[in-house]
């Protein structure tokens, strides 16, 4: 017995020799290997972060390079004589008759005014015909003129200074997209026209300015990218966000509070929990199909309306909000609930006086992340036709919720499918706007979290 119990000790001592403490200054092989593997892992981590940052920077750089120019736009300033002989033939001033003059009837006015302006400034017209000179102006211009006249019929017979959009190609020339070489091959523009534009720029008839219209104007047809704006899309997205905020936030928070604080844990609640998690992972286009079937075909809501888009996005956002809210509620320590119940607070008082305020930062963060997701969503909106081509603005709420509108991401998709390269610029510009909105929302989320955060 004694021999047995002693032998392992003596043999291990025999193998290792007397235990002598090694110097800390000499690194042994085992430690070296361990350090090397740690260094390798750190290097791989840094590499991954580096690749991520590089991809992000590349993406941002390309979008900014393509899109920033859409915030500037080339305008031609020209005095136009609103000729009564063309606009109000019998001189009655009757608005109904003036309205009968189509945009086609305004073209000669522009043609005449351009020729006059060039002659007045003594610019070499490069041997261009009046029609070619007028082509420097956007085909949108007659409509601009007509709207002005219909709004101010008393101005007929007077000369008014107008800021008219330059055509897309001229705008592209000043942004570097169109060059003399490309113009030679282009049926829509010639080098002579570009040279004339240069001259007009020199004397101040033509200039590039900040493009407010990009944020306010509605979409425009394929032939006039210079007139296309995000107004309707921003408004449509805003209406949808209002719907989502008003529906998804209260519904989601109420459902989470019930599930987390009140319901007993049983098979049914487990089933609901699994389903909510699964819903959060359902591809968004499925919600679009659901929306099409339920809200449009069954409930008969109007197509392309923000209310339908908002409802679809609400369905999509609900699981996100519920999951975030439940996580936030779970993170409130049970000791707070015990404390409140212990002094005789009811369940509801406990939740509303103590748990909910503590969970607020998490709930708000979740809600804003859900909203941001909804704002950037395009697939389900394409399915319900949130690509309405709206010439005028949708009405203000509440009617606006039922008027056709577009949405930011759908507008971006729509523009990328158009032929004119000027629309690529517009699409990139719209992406920048969308990113700016998303960034703002995330910053708001961070600020709210900071503000509401409390220790316990």
């Amino acid at each position, binding site marked *: 017995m004694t021999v047995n119990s002693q032998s392992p000790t003596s043999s291990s001592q025999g193998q290792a020799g007397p235990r002598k403490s090694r110097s800390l200054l000499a690194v042994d092989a085992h430690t070296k290997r361990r350090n090397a593997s740690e260094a390798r892992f750190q290097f791989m981590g840094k590499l991954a972060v580096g690749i991520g940052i590089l991809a992000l920077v590349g993406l941002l750089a390309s979008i900014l390079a393509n899109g920033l120019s859409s915030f500037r736009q080339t305008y031609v300033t020209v005095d136009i004589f609103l000729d009564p002989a063309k606009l109000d033939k019998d001189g009655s001033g009757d608005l109904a008759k003036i309205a009968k003059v189509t945009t086609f009837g305004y073209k000669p006015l522009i043609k005449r005014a351009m020729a006059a302006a060039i002659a007045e400034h003594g610019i070499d017209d490069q041997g261009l015909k009046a029609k070619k000179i007028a082509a420097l102006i956007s085909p949108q211009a007659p409509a601009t003129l007509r709207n002005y006249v219909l709004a101010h019929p008393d101005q007929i017979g007077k000369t008014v200074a107008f800021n008219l959009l330059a055509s897309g190609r001229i705008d592209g020339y000043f942004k570097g997209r169109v060059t003399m070489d490309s113009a030679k091959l282009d049926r829509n523009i010639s080098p002579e026209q570009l040279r004339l534009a240069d001259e007009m720029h020199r004397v101040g008839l033509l200039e590039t300015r900040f493009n407010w219209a990009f944020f306010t104007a509605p979409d425009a047809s394929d032939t006039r990218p210079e007139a296309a704006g995000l107004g309707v899309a921003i408004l449509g997205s805003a209406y949808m966000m209002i719907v989502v905020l008003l529906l998804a936030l209260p519904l989601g928070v109420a459902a989470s509070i019930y599930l987390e604080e009140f319901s007993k844990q049983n098979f049914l609640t487990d089933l609901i929990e699994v389903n909510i998690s699964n819903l959060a992972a359902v591809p968004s286009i499925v919600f679009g199909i659901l929306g099409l079937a339920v809200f449009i075909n069954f409930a008969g809501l109007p197509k392309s309306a923000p209310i339908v888009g908002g409802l679809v996005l609400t369905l999509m956002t609900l699981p996100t909000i519920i999951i975030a809210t439940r996580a936030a509620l779970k993170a409130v320590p049970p*000791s707070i609930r015990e*404390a409140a*119940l*212990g*002094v*005789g607070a009811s369940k509801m*008082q406990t939740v509303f*006086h*103590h748990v909910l305020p503590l969970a607020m930062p998490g709930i708000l963060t979740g809600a804003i992340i859900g909203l941001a997701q909804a704002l950037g969503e395009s697939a389900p909106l394409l399915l319900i036709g949130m690509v309405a081509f709206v010439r005028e603005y949708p009405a203000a709420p509440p009617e606006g919720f039922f008027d056709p509108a577009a949405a930011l991401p759908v507008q971006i998709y729509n523009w990328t499918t158009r032929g004119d390269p000027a629309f690529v610029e517009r699409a990139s510009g719209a992406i920048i706007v969308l990113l700016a909105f998303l960034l703002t929302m995330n910053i708001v989320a961070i600020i709210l979290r900071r503000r509401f955060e409390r*220790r316990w």
Partner: protein
Amino acid sequence: MNDIKVSARDVQVWYADNHAIKDVSVEIEDKTVTAFIGPSGCGKSTFLRCINRMNDTIDICRVEGDILLDGEDIYDPQVDPVQLRAKVGMVFQKPNPFPKSIYDNVAYGPRIHGLASGRSELDAVVEKSLRRAALWDEVKDRLNASGTGLSGGQQQRLCIARAVATEPEVLLMDEPASALDPIATAQIEELIDELREKFAVVIVTHSMQQAARVSQKTAFFHLGNLVEYGETSQIFTNPVDPRTESYITGRIG
């Protein structure tokens, strides 16, 4: 001898299939400190939480038997546990003040139970409660400071003030000093002795010295059974049951 305040008869508690309290009958006296001692996991907290129906909040917990407060069955279907908890206050093991001001911590109970009308009355209740908890002098100048900013011992006294502010008749304390340093512990123990004048105090403790110091009655729990219950002096000097003796001499625990 004092009146019987709480009387438990054949109480059984299950957590799902785990039979945590077996056939416990005990009579808790008014104006007395009763200590529950026993090895950890023996069911002291579980039994304590039966007295204010805190176990109702645990889905899997099932309680059988009768617990009478002043002769009324607190598990009667007509009893609202919320009302019961205003009468039977509780102090928890870990200090758990609300992340609100000191004032709001103490005022919360009186507010939700409508015990004070008007600001001045509420001020008076808060002051009285904080004085009873021996905290008034330390915090009277910073009633609007956060309750979570106090030291551990102060937080626990704040929780005691919060509990006594609703004018309970029974005060349950689940290892109230186990998270505190010796000085704070001594303050709490002194406080418990004073609270005895007004309430029936039931305290769970894992420290036998503490039980000996603060209590008049002691109940020894073991594996869900109430093994022995009697005068504290008798339990510690002359235990009847061999298990009690083993525990207080340190052989089980």
